């Protein structure tokens, strides 16, 4: 099983763990992740404005390059996934935007959203299969009570992301079961942690991240896992009313598969 892989800027710097464990686990599962040779930063956030073209072009370039490779494009960072998926959707379904973007890009063959963008979690669920993962787990995290934190970008807008039920997701919970731990469902798992304003408004970021962390703790979780570097940072740094640890889900996956050196 071979996929194109888009790591994104943060995974190359502050979130190396997310990337490193993700690659190791993939290898252990027999999945080949081929890093797009010429990927560019996705821009970090998808501009909701229809007339914003330029800021979305770097994402389009990466998508077009993945199309040439011919494999599904796997992302790991929630934010990159959101940007690539939304941009791809616009290229596919917004003729006005795709015409303008193609005009700017001057590709040999116009790009119209042909690449299939999937998140690493979707790859685990739909391509590898959680039951297969459970079989390969050598070091099950038995007894661990883990709270999945989806945040906002992984699931929404639901019509575009189409990963799971945006209000009652199960994909990370199923993942947690696959690695032998017990998922803890709590209501704030899909509410925003306020990561965006961490530079701008610390107080708001603290308030929101505390709400998430406390809700997870209140429901008996030992730890929180996430797919988003910004959420991880924010929950670690700003959720000061709770000391619940936060990990990348790939780290636990690598641990369960016995490849976390």
């Amino acid at each position, binding site marked *: 099983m071979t996929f194109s892989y888009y790591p994104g800027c943060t995974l190359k710097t502050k979130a190396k763990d997310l990337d490193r464990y993700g690659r190791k686990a993939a290898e252990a599962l027999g999945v080949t992740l081929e890093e797009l040779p010429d990927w560019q930063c996705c821009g970090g956030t998808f501009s909701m404005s229809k007339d914003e073209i330029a800021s979305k072009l770097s994402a389009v370039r990466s998508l077009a390059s993945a199309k040439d490779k011919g494999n599904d494009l796997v992302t790991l960072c929630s934010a990159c996934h959101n940007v690539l998926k939304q941009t791809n959707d616009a290229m596919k379904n917004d003729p006005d935007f795709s015409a303008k973007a193609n005009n700017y890009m001057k590709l040999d063959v116009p790009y119209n959203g042909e690449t299939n963008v999937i998140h690493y979690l979707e790859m685990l669920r739909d391509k590898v299969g959680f039951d297969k993962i459970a079989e390969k787990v050598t070091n099950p995290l038995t007894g661990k009570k883990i709270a999945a934190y989806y945040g906002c970008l992984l699931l929404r807008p639901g019509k575009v992301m189409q990963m799971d039920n945006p*209000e*009652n997701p199960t994909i990370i919970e199923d993942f947690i079961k696959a690695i032998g731990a017990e998922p803890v469902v709590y209501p704030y798992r899909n509410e925003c942690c306020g990561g965006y304003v961490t530079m701008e408004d610390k107080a708001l970021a603290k308030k929101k991240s505390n709400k998430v962390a406390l809700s997870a703790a209140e429901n008996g979780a030992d730890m929180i896992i996430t797919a988003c570097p910004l959420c991880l940072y924010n929950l670690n740094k700003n959720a000061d009313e709770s000391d619940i640890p936060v990990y990348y889900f790939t780290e636990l996956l690598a641990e369960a598969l016995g490849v976390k050196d």
Partner: protein
Amino acid sequence: MQRIGVFVCWCGSNIAATVDVEAVSEALKSEPGVVFSTNYQYMCSEAGQNMIKDAIKEHNLTGVVICSCSPRMHEATFRKTVQGAGLNPYMVEIANIREQCSWIHKDKQTGTEKAIILGKAAIAKVHLNAPLTAGESPVVKRALVIGGGIAGIQTALDIAEAGFDVDIVETKPTIGGKMTQIDKTFPTLDCAACILTPKMVDCAQNEKIHIYSYSEVTAVKGFVGNFTVSIKKKARYVDTTKCTGCGVCTEKCPVKNVPNEFNLGMNNRRAIYIPFAQAVPKVATIDADYCNMLKNGKCGVCSKVCTAGAIDYKQQDEIIEERYGAIVAATGFNPIKLDNFDEFAYSQSKDVITSLEFERLTNAAGPTSGQLLRPSDGKHPHTIVFVQCVGSRDTSGCGKPYCSKICCMYTAKHAMLTREKYPDTDVYVFYIDVRTPGKNFDEFYRRAVEDYNVHYIKGMVGKVAPRADGTLDVQASDLISNEQLHISADLVVLAAAIEPDKSARPLATMLTASMDTNDFFTEAHAKLRPVESPTAGVFLSGTCQGPKDIPETVSQASAAAAKVIGLLCKDKLTCNPCVAHSDEMLCNGCSSCEKVCPYGAITYSDKEFRMPDRTTAIRRVAAVNEAVCQGCGACTVACPSGAMDLKGFSNKQIMAEVDAICK
């Protein structure tokens, strides 16, 4: 050559505002065959109709073209008019210059030009019209009501009252429908069971009414006055003629964990059950999905305890066929599934319930014997939040675009009853709009606010977060005070939108009745024929036509019954004379037409013909049964030789219209 009269209607200003009616009647005057052309304010008025009649007599008209509204509106009117003047009613053609011209074009010149062309097409067609005579078909004096809720019950009772036989087909083991699950009814607060169950008993006892419970319609053939319907009587593994409804079996059955649908799964029933005490017919039914005897042949307890010997594990589904003159659809509604609304935590918390579940929680025959208790821990809730419009008025694709109509009133009822019975309970209602048109409805809602101090808050709930301590954190907006609220509630009640029952869509297909995009049955006319389907002989009763409360449902049910009685009173119906006809001289006998005819109206026989060369030949030729043919025209295109044609819509007529339009 026809002598044609042209009559252009102004329809007040509806046509005249964007079509120069004078110019149209003037232009059409010079068309071949037109000997008279005029225009008038309202052709459908008595004066207008007299104008047509006078012109027919004065000018010896043989054909009439009326440029007016849609033929779907007044074709029948004008056919009657010309008939009054001695002309064959099928010598009229209508040019639709209102719906398909004046109402959609703003520019007068454009509208006028198009109206002239439409008029010319109608003239071209009427040139080729021939007088047609309608045949007759008999009416079977028996009606079928599909659905045994309050709508179906009322319709059946009224039809039976008029002396006609009527059958009710109900998929559930008992009639009664949703109303059996409701506790009290607004705005009078009388007990639903007290007013419904006597009607159910009336149905059972009325000798004109036959109830097919636990049955469904599987096929419908025929047409108005003469439908043939297949009804599947599902195996209930109990001989209904022997069962006395004593209920011993339902107490002894060892399978105790079947979710009780009557209480919406909030408690359990046995594998053999009677839905509730007042069920009609009051007989037991075995749930084949759970019965041990039927699943693996091990048990047989019910059979042993049944003194009447009514249990029959070998019973099979049975299909019976019955003929009817009229069919009433009364398939009712269901609350929508709330899968798309998990922000309200319906699937995460037992204490988030729907309004129908709330009805069961307050009903004396419900799982809590009428005590309002939290499903999670059986404690009294002290703060209750009602959320309105859950899935109603939703155009995002998650819910239904329409207003479910009944939620405002039943929520006011729930809030009021709660406050009355448990005055220590805080009750909040989040609303977008409170819609209470109806007799004594707004007064009812105001009582909830003014007399019972229910907190009505203009705003919506955004998120319900179940807390570890069992409370529900309700995050909502209060648009009047412009703040975001957090209410710690014990129970949240969602007013889920209602939708037509799933059986309605396949039924509509069988009945060839049309449906709207929400799967409600379409009425023949939104204002003037609200209880008839566009398909002749099919009538609509209750919520299958649109959201309705009980009083409205009952009025519509009686209205549908009146329409059915009107039909069944007739001994014969006039057939549509626009039927297919085969030219025997051209017929190849190939059977193509017979294959595509949906009514089996075409038969073949060998016939002796005198050929042009004076020999005789035996040829296989088609013949159309005009009483059975409905005039769709499928055969006319299947026929390679052009032997088959359709009266009133002949090849030449349609091509004449094409020519007139394309000229």
